[in-house]
């Protein structure tokens, strides 16, 4: 009997769903609008819906809130010509209305909070004006029948069939998939009942359950959904799901977000560790001190200055005497060393003198 009640509910919702469908030619107009124009384009709408999902998930609202908000948005966009600069305000307004309708009073966040978190540029009064406009245009018809409604009903029907306890239809997973679909404007054209059924069938196929499949077919017959319709939307949903489930990570669009930090942290960030060091690099020679390491161990750093005569600095010159006749070794990095003189010095192009000039004037260098 439970099933009978559910089926009746299905039928009544089916009749209602047309009322909450956004106008098709309105949606087509959006799809054909080019990006960057004055009006709202498909990508603009899709991006905005993704933002809505971020906000929903951040505040911990239910999927129902999100689906309702998208429904309001699509209906509005399909009937009114909206400029792209107003799109953000519009979508936040839809979300706020959806939150007030769906969520408990205590969980509703204030307009101020919504605006702050979404980093929007409009004010609270702008938002409330926009909400009024939305409400008027949509005739205050907020309790929409959406794909989620159908999804819940289908799931309840499947559950109530005692025979298939072992095949578990995960409602959460279906909801997440529905959310992914709604982020594309093409699915707003679908009838909610058909869209929900397509999702259901794909999931059943993945589970490979004959029982559930039978139930789905029965639902399809009951609601008189045409095979062609179902096949068409199933194909699109399938493609969408493939993209959604791909393990590849997309590169996030970094520029949109503002990273505001407190003054103290900002100061810390600016004191750059990568300051250019004043002291020039001292290259390590390959043959450097290979003997000095051993001999310095034996020496006491004490009374007599023995180090000068022992082997510790046998290579006092940059080039030990037996190498002097050979060409300059490239890896040392000194370019202008003259080989003919008896002694060598570091070329001045390493800017030693400029540093000392600075020192001559300094008083109290902190």
């Amino acid at each position, binding site marked *: 009997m439970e099933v009978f009640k559910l089926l009746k509910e299905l039928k009544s919702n089916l009749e209602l769903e047309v009322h909450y469908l956004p106008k098709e030619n309105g949606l087509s107009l959006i799809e054909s609008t080019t990006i960057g124009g004055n009006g709202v384009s498909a990508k603009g709408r899709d991006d905005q819906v993704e933002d809505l999902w971020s906000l929903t998930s951040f505040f911990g609202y239910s999927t129902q809130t999100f689906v309702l908000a998208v429904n309001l948005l699509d209906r509005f966009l399909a009937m009114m010509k909206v400029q792209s600069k107003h799109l953000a305000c519009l979508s936040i307004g839809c979300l706020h209305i959806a939150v007030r309708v769906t969520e408990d009073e205590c969980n509703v966040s204030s307009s101020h909070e919504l605006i702050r978190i979404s980093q929007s540029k409009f004010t609270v009064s702008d938002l409330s004006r926009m909400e009024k406009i939305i409400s008027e245009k949509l005739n205050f018809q907020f309790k929409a029948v959406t794909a989620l409604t159908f999804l819940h009903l289908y799931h309840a029907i499947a559950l109530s069939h005692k025979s298939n306890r072992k095949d578990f239809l995960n409602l959460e997973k279906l909801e997440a998939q529905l959310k992914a679909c709604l982020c594309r404007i093409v699915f707003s054209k679908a009838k909610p009942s058909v869209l929900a059924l397509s999702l259901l069938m794909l999931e059943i196929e993945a589970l490979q359950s004959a029982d559930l499949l039978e139930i789905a077919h029965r639902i399809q017959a009951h609601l008189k959904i045409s095979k062609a319709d179902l096949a068409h939307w199933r194909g699109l949903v399938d493609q969408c799901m493939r993209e959604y489930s791909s393990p590849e990570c997309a590169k996030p669009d970094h520029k949109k977000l503002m990273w505001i930090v407190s003054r103290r942290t900002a100061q810390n*960030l600016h004191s750059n560790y990568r300051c250019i060091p004043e*002291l020039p690099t001292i290259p390590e020679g390959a043959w450097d*001190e290979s003997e*000095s390491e051993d001999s310095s161990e034996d020496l006491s750093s004490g009374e007599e200055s023995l180090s000068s005569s022992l082997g510790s600095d046998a290579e*006092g010159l940059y080039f030990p005497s037996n190498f002097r006749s050979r060409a300059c070794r490239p890896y040392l990095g000194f370019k202008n060393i003259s080989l003919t003189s008896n002694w060598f010095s570091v070329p001045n192009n390493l800017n030693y003198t400029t540093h000392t000039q600075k020192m001559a004037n300094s008083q109290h260098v902190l």
Partner: protein
Amino acid sequence: METPTKLPPSSPSSPTTGFSVPSAEKVDGFPRRSMRRARQRRSHSSSQFRYQSSQVELTPLPLLKDAPVAELHDLFCKKLQQCCVLFDFLDCVADLKGKEIKRAALNELVESVATSRGVLIEPLYPEAIKMISVNIFRTLPPSENPEFDPEEDEPALEASWPHLQLVYEFFLRFLESPDFQPSLAKRYVDQKFVLQLLELFDSEDPREREYLKTILHRVYGKLLGLRAYIRKQINNIFLRFIYETERFNGVAELLEILGSIINGFALPLKSEHKQFLVRVLIPLHTAKSLSIFHAQLAYCVVQFMEKDATVTEHIIRGLLRYWPKTCTQKEVMFLGEIEEILDVIEPSQFIRVQEPLFKQISACISSPHFQVAERALYFWNNEYILSLIEENCQVILPLVFGTLYRVSKEHWNQTIISLIYNVLKTFMEMNSKLFDDLTASYKVEKQKELKKERERNELWRNLEDLHERRLQSLTEASRNQKNLQERENTTKSQSETSAANTT
């Protein structure tokens, strides 16, 4: 009536003696130790003035530039010897004439070495080094202020700086002169000399340390035989600093020199240098006064990484091991250093350290100190780090997800909450399916926790009910017993009276 603002009586040695209300700038509630000082400090301190056995009177010598070439070197030597006489600068008016003569002589010497060629001949070397040694090598005075806080307090400046500065200048020009011959100098600038030079780095006067830094840098560059010795002694200084005294004023300067040395390391990196990194540089992060030299230390660490990527794992694990647990100022510094390191890390190395690293980052995000949380969240603003995270999204997102969600609901600071939204949104765009899966499992976890909480409350309620009922039944039982006893007593007395009546 006692005024509420009176401080409780404290012993003279307790930290609150002379404690005054800290200014609003001090974020943590613990009184800065520098506040303790009530007495005025003497503004100048000087090295001990060693009274010389015979106070030599200086007579002015003719100018070098006027001297004929034949006498030039001789005059130079004489002037050097004159400059070996020391003067007392603590007494401002003592021997002004002598001080002026020495100052002028030093000035001339500096100019001469800087500008003329052919001045530095072999006999001059021992005299010059002797003059320098006599002037600069001295026992540094003990610190006036035993709790000298380099960030807060003014350093004690060297009183004899007017002469000392010229001596240092002379030494520097001497080393940098084109006529300078390391083979001659090495006989006089030896290990003992270098050791004394290193000890001077503990001077409180920053100007002196600046000179010493440049001088030691040149010495290291030119006198190859001393390089190993210098490195070893610097190691000793650092190790003593880390494990024994925690007091040394010249750590930053020595690190700057090391930075230029590390930059010049030959590849492949010698094991001696890697040991230095692991045994000295990384433990150096544990010092209390890290803020003074952290910039230089971070530079050294990053240079090591750029030289040889295989040390990355040592560095990061070392930093994680020494991660500050109570000092948030240090935590912010560590986070800054981690960002610098991640900026240059190789992807293959990143994979090896990502798990422990992001566990720590997630702990920082949940820190109640807003600066720590902010700094950790700001990593996601760095493009290169973001690309590393993106490549390893599957591993990293689960590590930080729970923390991000929890903190977004619980944190007091609004800026943090906005930043968390940014980070969550970034993750969502990276891989929405993974994000949704994690959200679902997080919700399930939360439900389980709530259920457990409810069950626990239920259990307590039941226990209380049980307790009540037992109490009730006990009181009833005792009441019943009392009633019974009373009745017994009355019947007893009744029978007694009736017995009495019959007789």
